[in-house]
């Protein structure tokens, strides 16, 4: 059994190590920066589209938060401040790719084309995810932390073994990277060379627990290195950089070069969910400081300077966003309870005799109540 030489090890590590600083194309004030080699700026048309999607996404997000106050949603985890990540994740994927999102990623689903009302089906308190995951290639939003990451590897393997060109992308938070399933997924994907992208949105908190109490890794991107997964870190509030890095990651996976881990440094501007009180564990000054790094403002300044975005464009986007919000409000305001008898119908392909009995029992209770 020969051990690897120091030289070979160094060369091999180079394949996996992230950049020393997060990849960045645009500074916080919207002025261009020189990115590291190997990354191309997305073309202006894509950036223009990303801006539009971000405006729509943020409006969707504020509308969803408002709907919780009116009792129309059981709970909503906002992704305010993470729009660059949300939109880029959706935009870099093709129709034949798969997305494995978490509860935090509603905006990415809307950007992928899932009907906003269907996106909110689980969060409004229904028992199912609303949309057809097979049709739109988006797994149901996942709550048991990191479990979805292994599914993404399985799906990537399925596509690879069938000779298809699809890539699977798993979304996960900083806290989720402490879970065993995350590590198992990275290891499996590396061993099988699966076409999968692990996209970590490091928004600095897992509910109340700050990053420093979550991990002692240099940055979360380094978690890929030990498994032999190509890893990168990116400024998660720089939409240009996130699009650029995720594009490279998806191309890497699609080309058969194995999995790719991207850590985006971003920030959760709102509380964990509407039910959380973030003032118990973080300073207002910290949140204020991140307001200056707002991804929408940054892209707007950048694109205006490049004359890609005009006042009219912005006006049009805002108007589209208002229509989206109005439509969402109207459709979410239709009371919806669901049919309790359907609860028995999808436990198995065919209900067992016992489920049939229980369904009949419940139906009889309802009939008795009506009489």
């Amino acid at each position, binding site marked *: 059994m020969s051990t690897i030489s120091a030289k070979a090890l160094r060369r091999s590590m180079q394949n996996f190590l992230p950049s020393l600083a997060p990849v960045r194309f645009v500074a916080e004030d919207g002025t261009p920066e020189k990115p590291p080699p190997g990354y191309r700026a997305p073309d202006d048309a894509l950036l223009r589209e990303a801006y539009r999607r971000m405006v729509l996404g943020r409006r969707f997000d504020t509308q969803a938060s408002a709907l919780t106050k009116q009792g129309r949603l059981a709970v909503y985890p906002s992704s305010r401040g993470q729009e660059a990540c949300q939109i880029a994740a959706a935009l870099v994927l093709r129709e034949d790719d798969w997305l494995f999102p978490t509860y935090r990623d509603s905006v990415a689903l809307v950007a992928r084309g899932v009907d906003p009302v269907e996106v909110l089906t689980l969060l409004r308190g229904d028992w*199912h995810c609303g949309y057809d*995951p097979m*049709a739109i290639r988006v*797994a149901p939003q996942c709550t048991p932390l990191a479990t979805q990451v292994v599914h993404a590897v399985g799906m990537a393997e*399925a596509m690879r*073994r069938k000779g298809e060109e699809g890539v699977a992308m798993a979304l996960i938070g900083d806290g989720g990277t402490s879970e065993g399933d995350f590590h198992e997924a990275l*290891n499996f994907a590396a061993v099988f060379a699966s076409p999968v992208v692990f996209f970590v949105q490091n928004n600095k908190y897992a509910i109340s627990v700050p990053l420093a109490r979550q991990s002692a890794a240099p940055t979360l991107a380094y978690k890929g290195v030990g498994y032999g997964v190509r890893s990168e870190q990116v400024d998660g509030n720089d939409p240009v950089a996130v699009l650029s890095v995720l594009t490279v990651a998806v191309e890497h996976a699609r080309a058969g070069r194995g999995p790719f881990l991207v850590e985006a440094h971003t920030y959760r501007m709102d509380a964990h969910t509407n039910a959380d009180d973030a003032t118990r564990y973080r300073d207002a000054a910290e949140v204020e400081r991140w307001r200056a790094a707002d991804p929408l403002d940054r892209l707007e300044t950048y694109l205006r300077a490049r004359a890609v975005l005009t006042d009219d464009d912005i006006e049009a986007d805002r108007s589209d966003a208002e229509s989206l919000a109005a439509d969402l409000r109207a459709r979410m305001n239709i009371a919806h309870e669901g049919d309790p008898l359907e609860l028995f119908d*999808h*436990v198995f392909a065919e209900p*067992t005799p016992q489920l049939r009995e229980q369904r009949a029992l419940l139906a009889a209770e309802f009939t008795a109540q009506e009489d």
Partner: protein
Amino acid sequence: MATVTMAQALNTALRDALTADERVLVFGEDVGPLGGVFRITDGLTRDFGEQRCFDTPLAEAGIVGLAVGMAMGGFRPVVEMQFDAFAYPAFEQIASHVAKSRNRTRGRVSLPMVIRIPYAGGIGGVEHHCDSSEAYYAHTPGLKVVTPATVEDAYWLLRDAIDDPDPVVFLEPKKLYWSKQDTDFATRHAPPFGRAIVRREGSDATLVTYGPSVPVALEAAEVAARDGRGLEVVDLRTLVPFDDETVAASVRRTGRCVVIQEAQGFAGVGAEIAARVQERCFHSLAAPVLRVAGFDIPYPPPKLEHAHLPGVDRVLDAVDRLQFDDVPDVRHLIVGAA
């Protein structure tokens, strides 16, 4: 007709499934060139190729989670957990995804996959190698749970499980791997999936059991017959779906029932069976439904497992307490008074 072991029957079932359906895949720990620690996957990688039967890294949640993704992607994974107690790391994947996927997608994402688990004791295994974990799975809505007791059933139930549109936890009684039967698999005699079977007819009492305890029940019935007592033995075959009809019909006929399981008794599958029998057959019962089960202790070490495992004597003792002479069963009163 040939003499076949249960291990060979399972291997043949996997082979026939791999041949019949190219979506079927077999993976897990050491299932490749080694053929699994119990050799159930012996020769599959050699004969079907690394693409169809392969080793994964060591991580049970990873294996089951991978199977979830692959099932979504159109395959029919059959995964092996190396031992009962080593399936526990996968429990979150099993309970939160395998079992719930169809429901939480309103029927759109079905997961046709099989989780094979060598389970239960009786082979002198060391700790963590002999757990009877069926109740965890049977208690989880959305999982079908199967445990064969005969060589023939091992083959047909595994074929059924692989063809089933729902996820199946397939529990293989380790101690029966080397049990033998003269059979071939050309024609099916086994009942359909979801149906129990009367393994032996008798008119005095019904023994309801499954998996590793079926041979114990049959032996007890044999001994009882010599004393002129006819014991009917019902082998459940599938714990989920549960065949209330066959069980209730038998107990109504005999009027007495003992439920036998190797697993620890408290909150076990046997408790569920006893409750169901009592709910359905109360007016036919001449005595309380009794349970014979493992004790409520962690599985004992190899040299002491004989003391734990429900054997023929314990079963016959329970049968004797079924008030054949109208003598009340006072065991629980005595224990309670002590």
